[in-house]
């Protein structure tokens, strides 16, 4: 689990241990590069997270892992930073640029989107394997990817995009080869979240 000064890592660490992972929390580039799987958590502001991430060479680290097909899981703002850029209160910041698109404020009556919501996962999803359509996950965020802009190509397997709705549709999870991410917090989503983490771990172990 990548430690770059973004909030509370304890919950995610414990949730992963609960499903059998051997977890090391580190900001060391080499250790994070060599792990079987890397979790990139994140809470708070997009620009602030990118600053912290950049300070530990996170974007290069993520890029290097993905180039080698090594699994990465982004959670909440840790998912948002995988996009090209984020715009919060007029402040625009570059993200890691793994996916095209901008993370923006949701159009909804009540924000933050705080609480348990359902998601619509595509057929063939690994992350949501074994979970019913009415399963709820814990979200807390005001910003999200409101569109999925990666163009389909014959060269790559099309990513699996999971959607949720709060005021409007937004991207709730992505499974794109070795890069997976969730906008919700699996570590705070009780047994449902544990199942998602376990599904990811199984994929990591192969």
């Amino acid at each position: 689990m990548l430690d770059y000064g973004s909030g509370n890592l304890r919950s995610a660490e414990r949730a992963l241990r609960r499903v059998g992972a051997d977890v090391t929390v580190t900001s060391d580039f080499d250790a994070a590069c060599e792990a079987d799987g890397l979790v990139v958590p994140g809470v708070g502001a997009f620009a602030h997270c990118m600053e912290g991430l950049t300070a530990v060479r996170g974007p290069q680290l993520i890029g290097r892992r993905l180039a080698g097909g090594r699994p990465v899981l982004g959670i909440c703002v840790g998912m948002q930073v995988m996009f090209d850029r984020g715009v919060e209160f007029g402040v625009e910041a570059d993200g890691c640029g793994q996916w095209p698109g901008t993370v923006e404020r949701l159009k909804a009556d009540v924000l933050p989107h705080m609480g348990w919501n359902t998601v619509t996962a595509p057929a063939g999803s690994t992350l949501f394997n074994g979970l019913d359509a009415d399963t709820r996950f814990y979200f807390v965020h005001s910003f999200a990817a409101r569109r999925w802009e990666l163009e389909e190509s014959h060269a790559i397997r099309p990513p699996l995009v999971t959607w949720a709705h709060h005021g409007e549709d937004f991207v709730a999870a992505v499974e794109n080869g070795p890069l997976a991410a969730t906008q919700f917090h699996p570590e705070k989503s009780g047994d449902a979240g544990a199942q998602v983490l376990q599904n990811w771990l199984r994929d990591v172990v192969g």
Partner: protein
Amino acid sequence: MGVAVRVIPCLDVDAGRVVKGVNFKELRDAGDPVEMAAVYDAEGADELTFLDVTASSGERETMVDVVRRTAEQVFIPLTVGGGIRTPDDVDRMLRAGADKVSVNTAAIARPELLGEMARRFGSQCIVLSVDARRVPRDGTDGPPTPSTFEVTTHGGRTGTGIDAVEWAARGQELGVGEILLNSMDADGTRAGFDLELIEKVRRVVDVPVIASGGAGALEHFPPAIHAGADAVLAASVFHFGQLRIGEVKDVLRADHVEIR
């Protein structure tokens, strides 16, 4: 489908022990907040709130330990309130495993504190707790406020003269991500939530509002949601086993409210 209304049990904790712990049959130690939290989780609570009512500041570390042990075994969101006065207090609780902290009296003394906390930790983890009471328009109980509700301190005993509805709006402006709205008039009466208070605050804020104070029967919950609350919080009715979380959810579901 949309985001579900949250049902949140609150535990009052004094020096690391649940106040007036009641022995449910599934509990070994009703005074242990960690064990109580696990029971609520198993019953379907959507979130947990600990309110630290410890009088002596020397015992504050005890609460940090309670939060740490709870976060070890409960995988739903946890909010901690009571005695949060500085950004460092927030930091300590978040590091221990809390997801949100609620701030009350300290923000009344210095509102900018809310902005400082929201900037450092993110709006999503700062909750403004508003203890509101009605003030008579005729001035017989202190100067009237525009909304007829004022902010109180000391468990509702001391008025501040600050308009409670304006204060909630101010909190949002300063960056808090949620309002915990406690009716001090309704608190302990078990006569139902103060719907007028909820409606008035709902009209001026667009962050989530948690309704608290007055829950005494199942039929009290749906009106609080229809008045505009995004979540309902109760302490004693759950604590004394008078109502179960599942029953509250059943009555909300029957009223076409989305629940988990």
